[in-house]
């Protein structure tokens, strides 16, 4: 990079802008590579690579290409602008088959840079014209330079070569419409890398379909000048008409604001104007930054059209919760919790029910056992080979569970990816772990949370029941003793009374009624206990499911959602 770079603030800014765009584009590509179409990726990568090389090679040279139809006088125009016969001119069509470059540069380093760049552009031969480096001397551009003539003037000095400023690389390209298809393949890459395109046409050809197809296919980003050459062949009135017509056509077929000029390489008409326009572009060096920026912007827009920015950010919490809920339901957590509740009720009844009737509830089968779960955890059994539960096999695997899991996951993915590019949607679908159902199965079957935890009040309740039972027994025994004694007419001491009621009767009544009432109380407490157990099991199982789901579903999906957002945000920056 030579010393002339960054001599102006706006140039520095433009350069910075190019670099920002390159970075953003690269980021967008890296993020979106898995789902972006191959064509987009290749196109953008080529653009990035060429922009990088371009700013590394030289920022002081402006590449101007003369492209156009065969026989329109590109080579003559080049010769006229260079002021000497460089390109071969002939009436045979097509004439030019290899591109020729002319470099205006006075400094050694500039010339070697230009040589590198011309080489990078794929142009084999180039000519150097020592242009005066001093800017002031060349201003205004149409005034002939005052410095002594360095080049021997060609046979017909048509334009002063020095009005073209230092740092200009002018390339004469093969035609774009002839029988020789290889000409197009030679010219196209150079056109893609040019900073300014001069499209040369002539009065005969300006309405060709080819011309305008090609013009529409030119990189939109590049500044373009359309030149109507051979305009000396028309009389002035026709020329104006032609130019107006051409302007209309160009406006219709190109996207950018394109300048249209009339020139004649033979009479020199309009060449000075063209040269000064080219010179201005080269002087500003804005053509380069502008072109690079536009090209990168175009790539950004291409990426954006592939990956439109989504309206939502991330995965909303409610969607995740819905997924976990439906997955829990799918693998039968609800069924398990129902069984846990039933089992806890049954056990609690058995323990804390009225001892005289509590045994009846043990006659019914334990719902947990019928699911295959051992309801009580015992310390010694933890290490036994048999897993603590076997029911998982039956509930959370199998086609039905699998189907429900699939449906839950699919509905989740469809909610998350609803308005997205299809290839990305597919990526998201593939990101979900295929072993999800096994993992979920493992999450709820290799756990002992399903086992019931004894309620702390059971012991007390048992004691209370024992007391009431004792009272009942004592009272009944006393009463029966009294009854037997009375039957046998044995003398018994007076039964003590409490508030006028005989004590044994009171004890019996209290024992029986208290037991029943307390049993009813326990029933209510059992209900609360069972609910608590069920809720605890549900919470724990759900948290297990949540953990598995997070790792296997949500996180990979989230990563893709994020990379999509990253891609579209970066593309937005690049396309800004």
């Amino acid at each position, binding site marked *: 990079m030579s010393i002339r770079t960054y001599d102006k603030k706006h140039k520095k800014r433009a350069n910075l802008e190019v670099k920002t765009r390159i970075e953003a584009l690269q980021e967008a590509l890296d993020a979106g590579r898995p789902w972006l179409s191959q064509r987009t990726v290749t196109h953008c990568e080529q653009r990035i690579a060429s922009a990088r090389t371009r700013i590394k090679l030289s920022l002081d040279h402006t590449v101007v290409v003369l492209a156009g139809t065969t026989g329109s006088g590109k080579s003559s125009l080049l010769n006229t602008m260079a002021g000497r016969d460089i390109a071969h001119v002939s009436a045979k069509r097509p004439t030019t088959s290899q591109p020729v470059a002319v470099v205006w540069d006075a400094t050694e380093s500039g010339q070697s840079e230009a040589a590198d760049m011309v080489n990078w552009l794929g142009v084999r031969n180039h000519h150097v014209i020592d242009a005066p480096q001093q800017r002031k001397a060349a201003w205004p551009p149409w005034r002939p330079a005052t410095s002594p003539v360095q080049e021997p003037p060609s046979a017909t000095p048509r334009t002063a070569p020095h009005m073209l400023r230092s740092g200009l690389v002018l390339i004469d390209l093969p035609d774009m419409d002839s029988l020789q298809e290889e000409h197009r393949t030679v010219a196209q890459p150079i056109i893609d890398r040019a900073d300014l395109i001069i499209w040369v046409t002539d009065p005969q050809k300006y*309405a060709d379909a080819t011309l305008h197809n090609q013009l529409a296919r030119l990189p939109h980003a590049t500044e373009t000048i359309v030149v109507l050459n051979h305009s000396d062949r028309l009389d002035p009135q026709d020329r104006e*008409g032609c130019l107006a017509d051409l302007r209309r056509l160009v406006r219709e077929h190109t996207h950018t604001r394109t300048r249209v000029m009339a020139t004649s390489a033979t009479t020199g008409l309009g060449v000075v104007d063209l040269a000064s326009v080219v010179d201005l572009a080269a002087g500003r060096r804005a053509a380069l930054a502008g072109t690079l920026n536009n090209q990168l912007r175009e790539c950004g827009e291409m990426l954006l059209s592939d990956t439109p920015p989504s309206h939502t950010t991330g995965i909303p919490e409610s969607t995740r919760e819905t997924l976990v809920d439906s997955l829990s339901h799918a693998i039968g957590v609800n069924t398990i919790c129902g069984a846990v509740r039933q089992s806890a009720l049954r056990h609690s009844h058995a323990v804390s029910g009225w001892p005289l009737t509590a045994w009846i509830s043990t006659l019914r089968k334990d719902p947990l056992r019928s699911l295959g779960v051992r309801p009580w955890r015992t310390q010694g059994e933890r290490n036994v080979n048999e897993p603590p539960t076997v029911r998982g096999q039956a509930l959370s695997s199998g086609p039905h569970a699998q189907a429900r899991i699939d449906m839950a996951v699919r509905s989740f993915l469809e909610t998350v990816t609803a308005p997205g590019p299809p290839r990305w949607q597919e990526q998201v679908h593939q990101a979900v772990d295929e072993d999800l159902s096994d993992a979920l199965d493992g999450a709820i079957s290799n756990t002992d949370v399903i086992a019931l935890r004894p309620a702390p009040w059971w012991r007390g309740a048992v004691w209370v029941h024992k007391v009431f039972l004792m009272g009942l027994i004592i009272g009944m025994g006393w009463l029966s003793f009294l009854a037997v004694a009375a039957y046998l007419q044995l003398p018994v001491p007076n039964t003590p009374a409490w508030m006028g009621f005989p004590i044994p009767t009171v004890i019996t009544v209290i024992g029986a009624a208290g037991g029943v009432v307390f049993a009813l109380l326990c029933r209510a407490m059992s209900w609360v206990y069972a609910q608590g157990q069920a809720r605890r099991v549900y919470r724990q199982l759900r948290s297990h499911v949540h953990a598995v789901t997070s790792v296997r579903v949500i996180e990979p999906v989230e990563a893709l959602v994020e990379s999509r957002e990253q891609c579209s945000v970066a593309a937005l920056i690049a396309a800004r």
Partner: protein
Amino acid sequence: MHGVLPAALCPTGSTVGHNAALHDGHQGAKPSPISHNADMSARTDGLPEAPPPPTTLQDTVHDIERLLSQVTFPLDTIDAAPARDVTQRVRHQLDNYIAPRLSDEHAPLLTVVGGSTGAGKSTLINSMLGTHVTAASALRPTTRTPVLVCRPEDDAWFTYGAVLPGLGRAHVERSVEERPQPSTNPPAEPNHGPQLRIVTSERLPGGIALLDAPDIDSLVQANRAMATQLLDAADMWVFVTTAARYADAIPWDALRAAHARNVHVVIVLNRIDRGETSVLGDLTRLLEEHGMGHTPIIAVHEATLTDGFLSEEAIAPLSRHLTRTATTDHIRQHVIATTRDGSLEHLAAQLGDIAAALDTQLHVHRHLHDIVTAKFDSARHDVLDHLNNGAALRAEVLSSWQDIVGTGRFMRNIEQRMNATRDLVASMALRRGRSATVQEKATQSIATITLSAAQTAAHNTWFALYHDPAGQALTLRPELAHASPDLADHLGQHMRQWQDSLRELLLSTGGRRRTTARILAVGTNTLGAALIVVVFASTGGLTGTEITIAGGTALVAQRLLESVFGTEAVRQLASTAGKDLSDRITAVLAREEQRFLTPLTEYATPPNLPIQLRHAATTLRTTMARTSPTNTNKPSQTPHHPPGALRGATFSPPIDDHTTPTPTGHTEGGRFHRLLQQMRKIGGGER
């Protein structure tokens, strides 16, 4: 064919040879108005009813037209776009050229003047006729409405004939004497479709008509299409190009196409700078490279126009060539026959291409069809597998069933051959709700599995189609990515119907009164539940851990059924019910599959169309081989043609004019041409 052609087409543009040729032409076509008119009337009268000799050829062409009307390329295969263009062109050519040419052998030779935009076609025509029949200007594209110039006698043929039926006719009555009004060019066109302006001119030699075509490479799409259509309708091309653009790609594509069809082409190289000679040689070289070395080239120099016309000298070679071709019968016949045969040959070849593209369509359609059916087949297999191996019989269902059958008490009841029927009824009455639950759970399980399988299949199919370039048309319907929204309801309905049918099945199986009594005693719901359990458990048998849970209870169900119906009947029942279920599931999945297949039928191609096309091409070739010699051997019917008076046709150049262009490219043609070529070489060397 080339051996014959140059001999017939004498080098009309040559400085030395053309005089003799011109004399031949004059002698061959002595104008005789009476006989000519008689011939003309005979021809026009005989046109509708007289069955012409090549009936079979016409029939074949008619067949081909009929076949081509069926050809569409609905799928976007790789070769679909070019094939559509080819088909369109072939149709146009059949309508515009082949059909009219076959209907009348002696219709005027339609010469289309075509070429690049700005090559000066209109100026050439105007100059030859000495009238401003078409507009010429510096603005491009100039000619937007094609102009047909013919003799007044031929007016009827072109106005009412079968030529170019797709174009409307705008008649311009203008005699030669009338001077054009510049402001009226071009005339205001009516809005309906493309028009063909017909202008009559007495200066034209008889038996020929000139058509000023729009640019072949015009910016205006309609112009391009029209130009192609007109060139395809031509008996002879006058291909106008210029020194600046003779190497352009698009005109060369057209020339190659003409060469492929063996159309008779004359190239006019217009606007050569004075003193420029290398261009002509270069064009000759290019022509030879493309195997068209025999094509006559007529060079016209860039010159100032006087009154909008080229000088007589400049236009002379072309005028002479045209006059000669028109008035010399054997040349005229030869040109017509060559172009016609070439076009028919080319038609046969293109039919082959179209058939090949149709084959691709068929293959791709088959492929897309296979994608859909493969996905849904695998879905169906999955579901039926789950049904058959009992995996759908979930633990929940079994445990519900266990709840029904309860403990040993129930078994005892059964073993007592239901003596205590009353007890049983009571117990069943209590558990009726539960047997309903078993049925619900079981059918729900199947419904869920089917639903999920259908969704997966729809999803997979959609993406498989999305990745197929031709299948993407289907994926434009985003609703296809999911199973149909009412699928769950639909499945539920089917499952309810299945349960109902089970009940009916049970009742109809229990024909005997005693059995019916038993059924009523146990309750159809319970029996239905038992039957479901048996259906799921019996076919595949349970494996692994499930056997411990399911085996016993399934056995209970079987026992229960057997106790009611007997062993054989139970087996019958189970297989009938199972078949009914799998039929229903298949039907549901087939309905989902149809959502893809129905739109796919819109992209179908009749399967026998390619074969028919190939067959038609073969028929065409054999018919041509049979009929063409008889066709050409009828010179007696040819009408006489007046020589006309094209400008420059009688112009005799000064002998010493070196710059007068010579026609080139005659690969053979006797001493004279060799001499000429040598002269040209020597001349080129000097310069």
